[in-house]
């Protein structure tokens, strides 16, 4: 039998923090000997960090005795407080349950196996958001005194337990009120647990994401990023961005200021696996990386792993950013429209069949293409031309349906496109036009199936495409003009089938296994010349194809209360150009709970990467080219070891320390003479061959990361400090000497905080500091001689010029990579969000300032010779005091 003992008509017994602290102090000052029970619990919550589970109906209106001594130990103090209230307390998990003195007795301790064989039953089900019916991943499901687990990516959990009269179940997730249930375990129990939103400022929800408590999980180096955090934190021009928010986490470095690229623990910008509903997104940048393609409106969960990788993930060296789209509200229709300086947005969601099927649609589009175009051109000093425009749009769509309790279907997709282009008069008869277009498209069809309560499966069919095209056109403006078009293009398309199994065989084991098949097709070096002079067209493109087959398995094994082990591995067979590569990747994570509040964690993971991103900037520009690993450009490999300590300072505050060491082999560099498709050199595309650009080397990265975080309460946020050092070495670069890559920053400090002044008024701020990144600047000047004039176009007249070329122009010599350190970076961003709640509508106004104190952080340096022959060093900075305003209407 399953029953809910404390609150008739509701399955919830939720924690409750009271708003009467001030009142309590006043009443105490007046010398009253009674106070309300709520006030007493509030005081204990504030003073001792204690949390209480209770039914408000039982508590409200009751007065309590004022304890004679507030410094007594907790339980005697509670005894005094509850004297005469007909209530009792007992400890459930890490909080105290306040219940009627006649409440059912707590469940008896488990029966000894030696005395009597016990049957096992399974408690399983889905954890969902109460209002929308959205399934909640990562929720902590805790059987008091026994075991804990977390819901999987689809909100499903299962626990196999010995038969028992009663078990107490606590379910929690940051941002939601905690739910408590007592369940009679005399048969398999299948339940749905609905978590209410925590919309009360001082709600005594328990600790931060329970799955992140010390000792709760063996997972190292993982962060979850609630959508609420994404929405609350300041953003450039008010455009919320998940990747830029991730840059505030320890161990994550940005590339250029303002760019969405991630450099995780010394890795390159291409070493991050960005997944949206199981589909990889290859170039996640809008507007040349100033914004990412992920529309926060469409996201439900974001988790980042930067070490200790789960065997489920593979294919990139440095991080996995797993984003899940919202399913759409299953109960009522909702909408949202918003606009800001950069984009306008639309969101629609609602049930297709109430409580069974729903949809979600989000869209956004740039507002002022000309302004954005001029911004991009302003960054590129050597651009000419007029009428530059830059714009982008993206769409997210998702529909899902419960076919029955055992079967669910999800169909989700993303489609986005960017454009940048402009032109000018070429001569009397023609004008020129440059344009580039790029974008991603993904689609995922997923089928969740429950074979039994203990065996959950997911089948995903995944499509992902990245497309890039660049063109230069000469457009006739008179009858004498001749039209010509050069177009370069490239891209890749993934077709994947993925089958995952979650198996919950016994109390202390959770086994995950699966297989992933990916067929990847590349279009490389695509080139097309349309010439009105010579009829027909010249077209060439290199097609390439690879297959990746991976099998993985891992077991999360809680051996006892002190030790949790996650061991597994992943084996991949990669096939390209008739050759096969086999890679085995062991994964191991261990957590040892030293005390209830302190745990040590350690992990080891090997990763391989079978696709390379060719870039001359590392900034994830659309011109970057994704290419397959080949025999000549072998798969990248990394080994990472992590040692961590986690300590819960209080139920709200957690301190973590991680030390990592990572070795990377076969990472990609670009040897001298590498040619790239640029933004305006489409005419040269026919001569550019990617394999000639690439050189490979090794890298090592190590660092220390310290994080203090608080995810709940009026004030939430984190303080993160990272000390890191990264060195790369390539035989063919920097004369074979090791060097610091551009993203190597020794010290990084970030502070992120949100304070809820009222439930409708929030102030958020983040401050970032990082020591300067290495850059290469000239140290001297020399003539530009070369053999037989090689290296530059020449008019070779004299014998000396014919043999050695001309003396000018003077070359600014950089002798070694990145010997100059830029000035430190720091910046304060602020956002104030005010919502006005009307009967059916909610208006949200957001005012933001990026770089509030106007720090001029170096984007790059330019050594420049003035007309008076004076050498000047110029610092180019972005984002000096950027105000913004955004408006959103929810209905």
């Amino acid at each position, binding site marked *: 039998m399953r029953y809910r003992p404390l609150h008739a008509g509701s399955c919830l017994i939720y924690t409750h923090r009271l708003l009467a602290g001030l009142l309590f102090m006043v009443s105490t000052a007046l010398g009253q000997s009674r106070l309300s029970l709520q006030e007493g619990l509030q005081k204990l919550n504030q003073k001792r960090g204690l949390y209480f589970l209770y039914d408000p109906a039982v508590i409200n209106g009751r007065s309590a005795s004022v304890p004679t001594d507030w410094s007594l130990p907790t339980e005697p103090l509670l005894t005094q407080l509850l004297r005469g209230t007909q209530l009792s307390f007992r400890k459930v998990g890490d909080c105290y349950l306040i219940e009627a003195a006649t409440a059912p007795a707590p469940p008896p301790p488990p029966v000894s196996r030696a005395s009597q064989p016990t049957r096992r039953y399974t408690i399983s089900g889905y954890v969902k958001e109460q209002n929308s019916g959205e399934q909640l991943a990562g929720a902590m499901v805790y059987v008091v005194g026994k075991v804990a687990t977390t819901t999987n990516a689809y909100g499903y959990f299962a626990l196999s337990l010995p038969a028992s009269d009663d078990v107490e179940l606590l379910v929690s997730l940051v941002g939601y009120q905690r739910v408590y249930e007592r369940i009679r375990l005399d048969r398999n129990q299948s339940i749905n647990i609905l978590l209410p939103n925590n919309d009360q400022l001082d709600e005594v929800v328990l600790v931060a994401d329970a799955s992140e408590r010390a000792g709760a999980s063996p997972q190292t180096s993982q962060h979850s990023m609630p959508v609420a955090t994404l929405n609350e934190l300041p953003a450039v021009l008010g455009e919320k961005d998940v990747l830029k928010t991730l840059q505030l986490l320890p161990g994550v470095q940005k590339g250029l200021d303002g760019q969405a690229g991630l450099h995780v623990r010394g890795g390159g910008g291409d070493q991050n696996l960005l997944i949206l509903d199981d589909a990889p997104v290859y170039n996640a940048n809008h507007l040349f990386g100033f914004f990412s393609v992920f529309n926060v409106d469409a996201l439900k969960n974001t988790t980042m792993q930067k070490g200790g990788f789960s065997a489920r993930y593979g294919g990139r060296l440095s991080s996995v950013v797993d984003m899940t789209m919202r399913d759409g509200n299953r109960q009522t229709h909702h909408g949202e429209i918003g606009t800001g300086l950069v984009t306008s947005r639309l969101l629609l969601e609602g049930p297709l069949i109430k409580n069974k099927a729903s949809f979600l649609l989000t869209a956004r589009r740039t507002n002022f293409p000309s302004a954005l175009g001029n*911004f991009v051109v302003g960054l590129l000093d050597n651009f000419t031309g007029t009428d530059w425009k830059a714009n982008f749009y993206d769409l997210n769509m998702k529909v899902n349906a419960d076919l029955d309790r055992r079967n669910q279907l999800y169909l989700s997709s993303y489609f986005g496109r960017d454009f940048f282009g402009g032109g000018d008069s070429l001569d009397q008869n023609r004008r020129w036009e440059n344009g580039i277009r790029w974008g991603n498209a993904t689609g995922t069809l997923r089928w969740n199936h429950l074979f039994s309560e203990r065996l959950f499966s997911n089948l995903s069919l995944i499509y992902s495409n990245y497309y890039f095209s660049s063109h230069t056109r000469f457009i006739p403006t008179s009858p*004498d003009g001749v039209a010509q078009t050069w177009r370069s293009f490239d891209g890749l398309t993934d077709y994947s089938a993925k089958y995952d199994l979650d198996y919950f065989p016994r109390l202390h084991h959770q086994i995950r296994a699966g297989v992933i098949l990916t067929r990847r097709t590349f279009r490389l070096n695509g080139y097309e010349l349309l010439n009105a002079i010579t009829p027909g067209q010249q077209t060439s493109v290199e097609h390439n194809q690879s297959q990746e087959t991976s099998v993985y398995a891992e077991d999360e094994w809680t051996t006892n209360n002190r030790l949790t082990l996650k061991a597994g591995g992943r084996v991949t067979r990669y096939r390209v150009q008739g050759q096969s590569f086999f890679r085995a990747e062991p994964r191991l994570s261990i957590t040892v709970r030293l005390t209830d509040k302190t745990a040590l964690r350690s992990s080891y993971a090997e990763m391989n990467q079978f696709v390379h991103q060719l870039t001359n900037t590392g900034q994830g520009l659309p011109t970057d080219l994704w290419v397959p690993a080949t025999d000549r450009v072998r798969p990248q490999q990394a080994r990472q070891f992590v040692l961590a300590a986690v300590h819960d300072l209080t139920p709200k505050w957690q301190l973590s320390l991680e030390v990592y060491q990572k070795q990377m082999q076969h990472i990609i560099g670009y040897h001298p003479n590498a040619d790239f498709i640029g933004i305006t050199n489409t005419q040269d595309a026919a001569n550019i061959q990617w394999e000639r650009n690439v050189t490979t080397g090794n890298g090592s990265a190590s660092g220390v990361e310290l994080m203090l975080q608080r995810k709940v309460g009026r004030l939430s946020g984190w303080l993160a400090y990272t000390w890191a050092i990264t060195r790369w070495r390539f035989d063919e670069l920097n004369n074979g000497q090791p060097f610091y890559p551009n993203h190597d920053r020794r010290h990084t400090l970030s502070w992120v905080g949100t304070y809820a002044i009222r439930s409708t008024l929030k102030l958020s701020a983040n401050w970032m500091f990082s020591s300067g990144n290495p850059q290469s600047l000239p140290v001297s000047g*020399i003539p530009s*001689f070369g053999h037989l004039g090689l*290296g530059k176009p020449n008019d070779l007249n004299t014998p*000396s010029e014919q*043999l050695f070329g001309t*003396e000018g122009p003077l070359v600014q010599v950089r002798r070694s990579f*990145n*010997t100059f350190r830029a000035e430190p970076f720091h910046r304060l961003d602020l956002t104030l969000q005010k919502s006005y709640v009307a009967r059916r509508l909610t208006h949200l106004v957001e005012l933001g300032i990026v770089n509030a104190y106007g720090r001029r952080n170096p984007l790059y340096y330019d050594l420049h010779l003035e007309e008076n022959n004076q050498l000047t060093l110029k610092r180019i900075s972005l984002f000096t005091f950027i105000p913004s305003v955004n408006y959103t209407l929810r209905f």
Partner: protein
Amino acid sequence: MVRAGLVFFFSWLLVGCLKTTDSIDPNRLAADRQSKLYVLCFISPQDTLLTAKVAMSEPQIIATLEPTLLVKTATVTLSDGQASIPLLYSDSLGYYVTRPLGRFRIRAGQTYQLTVSMGDDRRVQATATVPPAIPIGQVRIDSSILAQTGNRTSIRYTTTIDWASPGGLNYYRGWGELTQTIQTQQGRLPETRISRPDFFVLRENNTGPGPYSTTGSFTLTVTPGSLVRTARTRFGLFNTDQNYYQYHATLREQLNTPNSLFAGTPVLFSNMEGGYGVFAAYNATYISR
């Protein structure tokens, strides 16, 4: 009107506030404040002259063609470990030169050392090993009309040198010279032009032997209806050492890619200990017709 105002405001915000430029003290650079020797020397078994160019670096990084940075008083010596030969400055040629005439040979597989010194204790040295020669398989020449306007026609010539590569890591450079006569429709005397395709250095990294090629091109501009005849061609395939490749590749990168937000950082290669420049070796094969 409102939209135009918003566009103006937003443009001002983006361009004016997003990007700022400040001048700061150049002494923040880790500048090489001492003027250093800059030496170029390329040797090959086929060359009858041994040559080197010597100049000084300019610590201020200021383009100064007047006065020149060339050095005429250096002591330049080439040695193979057993014998050595000095190179002397020639005012008429503008570089250091010697004609060994059998006194000093450049041989494939041999390592040579170049030493350049000046009286004020400035001294640089470098070594280079001569790679083997690789015969040319064939040369192909293609042409196409690139553009045609009322009074001129641009013809694009694409020249390709093919050879059998031994495989592995190799560096090449093509070279070519075409002598062409151009007969216009007006019947004037044919004009002779010498053109050199823009072959560049090339890096090969093949696991095994196989065909390989390099392509260079040039554009010939003539009056419409002109008859172009290729009278003489001479092509060379240089099998170069890594020094040769890296210096030229990075030199071009320096010239083509100054500081730019959207470009990688070029670093000029040098194998001169204590200075700048390159001492490199190559082995050439030529084909004429």
